[in-house]
């Protein structure tokens, strides 16, 4: 990815650029205006002002995971600037397009932000440092090699002369970036690996209008929307004349599968929407229920034509000669992302130009969706990226963008802020898929696992997002944690039955590593119990060829004092699961009352993400995953009746509160170096199985279906 694409002449440029699938555009734009409006640009990533303020540009979205601090840290480390002088700004998708994607991808998901951009960000920082040093050396007429940069200052070692970054920034911005730069060895890092203060803290504690819902523009209208309650249904009729004369009404906009009311305030729009008689054509799925969908998915467990994804050794031979055979069936329901900021998007359509303000996880996808929805070329679109009130994968989808633009077209010339109610958000998600799994394992006389057969019957996300990823009916993405399991097992057979109902599914924090590890690690625990072995002891030899998984399991075991005695009634459970480039293991300590009330005494989560950029941030992500994961494991369940989602709001889709948050959460970071892994999702993967394994240890009851509530378990809470 070019970090040094910067025009050497400040005049009009002709830039040809491509975005997405082979679209090529030629644009003219005055590059001088874009750069000088803000200050001298030293590589596209950095602007340094005369007062030494360092503006580091961020191309990924900030949804709480801390990328808007972590990514600038990567630049700052090499740049050798004073961290206290750093400010950030999000880049514009339109300018990214105009400048030949100089800032690269803006997609934020899959725990990719740090690991996909770290190399070019560090190189940008290093290049800028070299340019600043070169400018100082030129000014002093000395050798650049006799100069060092440190803390926003350049020092000429032999003479001791100093100059601030801000004093040479203008001169540096006129130089050619170096063709090659050398990056620091991690052992020489000053900033990376330390807990730098997050850059967005102050704004977030003073109520600044940061989010998509906070966008405020002159003449702005508000839109509320009702989408067909049954997925894939359509709008039939709407008696919009019923709203005539009501206060604040501007327009009723009919979409293919939804109705929007545009008004002078959101509350009025939502109120009028509730009064509107709407007739839907529910289509074919109007009688689907959770049970009917579960039955549909479960058929995949029996389907003899299900393709084989992996087949090592000979499972059938192993089963026939096994000392013991263990079988079990597992279930995980649909889940809702439930970010606290509901879906929203603000759009303005003026002639053939479109401007969008969105809390999106991918400003470029929003850009492309807006262009398509308005039927205009990409260069006629501008997207302003706001902060996100949580994303968790939901805001990579662009349904709300297309709606906002369609509505904006209907009130052309005026910006419209579309905001979904919580009820719309709850009932129109791209849900974590419902999955069923059947396991069969063979143990030998020594209690070793000789064969494992897995039949995975699940919705596929790739089927709707990237169908070309599915080969011969096998969706490897849906088999995460199974197809690539770290255990050495002589015979292993994995079969996949794709079962897609009418329920839309999508990427939800940790994606298939949310339900797959629950099933895998609980079944491994079942095998350990059948073999009469301690769960850690049972796993150890099988992980000999997976040293990182083994190391993180050992770290969790050690930190939790795995083999040490526990107080009466307290029991432990363990699980290990790698995902998103990193490795994690968790140990839960629980006590369970006779009535099934779980007291989570302690949670230990060990994570190896290769390098840790910001330890404080990493710990925050572990805590975040515990809250998110426990919400799912304890109560998370989306059910359907009459083809539609039954849950409406937080009163029937329960979210963890402070009273239920375990008091002892130990984040154990064990970075082994040498690679860059994700941090926002990986800690989540081993949590549900570790908890369920602990519940088994405490009660003798094996949990094979989530949520725990459905299995008769609860947690203590404030009534």
């Amino acid at each position: 990815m070019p970090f040094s694409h910067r025009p050497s002449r400040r005049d009009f440029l002709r830039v040809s650029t491509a975005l997405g699938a082979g679209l090529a555009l030629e644009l003219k734009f005055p590059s001088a205006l874009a750069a000088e409006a803000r200050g001298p640009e030293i590589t596209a990533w950095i602007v340094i002002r005369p007062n030494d303020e360092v503006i580091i540009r961020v191309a990924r979205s900030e949804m709480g995971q801390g990328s808007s601090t972590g990514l600038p840290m990567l630049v700052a480390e090499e740049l050798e600037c004073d961290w206290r002088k750093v400010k950030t700004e999000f880049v514009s998708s339109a300018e990214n397009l105009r400048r030949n994607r100089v800032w690269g991808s803006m997609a934020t998901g899959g725990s990719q932000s740090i690991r996909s951009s770290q190399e070019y960000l560090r190189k940008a920082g290093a290049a800028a440092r070299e340019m600043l040093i070169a400018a100082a050396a030129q000014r002093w007429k000395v050798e650049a090699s006799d100069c060092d940069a440190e803390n926003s200052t350049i020092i000429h070692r032999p003479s001791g002369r100093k100059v601030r970054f801000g004093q040479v920034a203008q001169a540096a911005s006129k130089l050619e970036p170096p063709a090659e730069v050398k990056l620091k060895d991690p052992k020489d890092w000053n900033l990376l690996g330390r807990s730098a203060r997050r850059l967005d803290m102050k704004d977030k504690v003073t109520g600044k209008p940061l989010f998509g819902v906070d966008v405020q523009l002159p003449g702005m209208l508000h839109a509320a929307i009702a989408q067909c309650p049954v997925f894939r249904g359509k709008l039939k009729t709407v008696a919009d004349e019923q709203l005539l004369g009501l206060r604040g009404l501007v327009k009723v906009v009919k979409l293919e599968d939804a109705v929007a009311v545009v008004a002078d305030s959101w509350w009025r729009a939502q109120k009028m929407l509730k009064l509107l008689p709407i007739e839907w054509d529910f289509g074919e799925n109007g009688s689907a229920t959770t049970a009917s969908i579960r039955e549909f998915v479960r058929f995949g467990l029996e389907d003899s034509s299900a393709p084989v994804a992996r087949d090592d050794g000979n499972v059938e031979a192993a089963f026939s000669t096994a000392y013991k055979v263990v079988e079990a069936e597992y279930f995980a329901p649909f889940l809702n992302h439930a970010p606290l900021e509901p879906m929203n998007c603000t759009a303005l359509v003026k002639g053939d130009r479109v401007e969008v303000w969105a809390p999106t996880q991918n400003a470029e996808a929003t850009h492309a969706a807006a262009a398509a929805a308005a039927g205009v070329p990409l260069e006629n679109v501008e997207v302003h990226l706001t902060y996100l009130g949580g994303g968790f994968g939901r805001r990579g989808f662009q349904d709300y963008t297309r709606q906002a633009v369609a509505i904006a077209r209907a009130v052309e010339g005026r910006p419209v802020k579309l905001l979904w109610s919580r009820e719309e958000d709850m009932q129109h998600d791209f849900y974590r898929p419902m999955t069923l799994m059947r396991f069969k394992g063979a143990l030998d006389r020594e209690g070793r696992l000789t064969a494992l057969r897995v039949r995975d019957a699940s919705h596929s996300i790739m089927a709707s997002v990237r169908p070309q990823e599915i080969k011969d009916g096998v969706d490897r993405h849906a088999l995460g944690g199974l197809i690539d399991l770290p255990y050495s097992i002589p015979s292993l057979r994995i079969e996949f039955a794709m079962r897609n109902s009418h329920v839309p599914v999508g990427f939800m924090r940790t994606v298939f590593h949310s339900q797959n590890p629950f099933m895998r690690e609980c079944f491994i625990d079942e095998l350990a119990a059948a073999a009469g072995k301690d769960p850690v002891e049972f796993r150890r030899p099988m992980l000999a060829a997976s040293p990182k998984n083994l190391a993180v399991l050992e770290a969790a075991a050690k930190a939790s004092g795995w083999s040490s005695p526990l107080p009466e009634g307290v029991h432990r459970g363990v699980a290990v699961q790698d995902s998103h480039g990193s490795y994690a293991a968790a140990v839960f300590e629980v006590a369970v009352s006779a009535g099934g009330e779980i007291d989570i005494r302690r949670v230990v989560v060990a994570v190896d993400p290769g390098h840790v950029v910001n330890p404080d941030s990493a710990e925050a992500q572990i805590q975040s995953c515990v809250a998110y994961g426990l919400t799912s494991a304890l109560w998370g369940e989306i059910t359907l009746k009459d083809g539609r989602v039954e849950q409406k709001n937080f009163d029937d889709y329960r979210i963890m509160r402070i009273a239920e948050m375990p008091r002892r959460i130990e984040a154990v970071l064990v970075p082994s170096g040498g690679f860059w892994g994700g941090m926002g999702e990986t800690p989540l993967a081993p949590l549900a199985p570790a908890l369920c394994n602990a519940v088994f240890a405490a009660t003798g009851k094996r949990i094979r279906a989530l949520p725990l509530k459905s299995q008769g378990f609860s947690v203590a809470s404030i009534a």
Partner: protein
Amino acid sequence: MIELTVNGRKHNVDVEPEMPLLWVLRDVLDVKGPKYGCGIAQCGACTVHLNGEPVRSCSVPVSAAAGQKVLTIEGLAQRGQLHPVQKAWIDNEVPQCGYCQSGQIMAAVALLARNPNPSDKDIDAAMTNICRCGTYARIRTAIHAAAKSAKPARAKA
């Protein structure tokens, strides 16, 4: 016309008396601190103070605030000085996405006004605001820190 005082400033708003205070603040007065998360008083992202008491403004009609004093997150800092709770929130790196934090902070300020030295159980009972990012552990720490920092210095006898 409904008159209400928000963060020390008097406003006259021409709105339906049943319009929730949250939407008067956000859409009529452009006070964006309090947020919309659920609309049914479940999440607390809309928490403001009405005459010093914490309320979930999505479920309070503006008529109930007529002639009353409303305080939002924007009104917490005094003369450029952050409130001790805001300082504690920064010192303990509490926010992640930040969406719930206006409500969390307003709830915490109200708790400490009532109970200057809350126990963990007191915090559990008072702080029922939802945080989807799970900043709860640090909210607890920050409340304890704010409580400590607000203790008046005692002169030695």
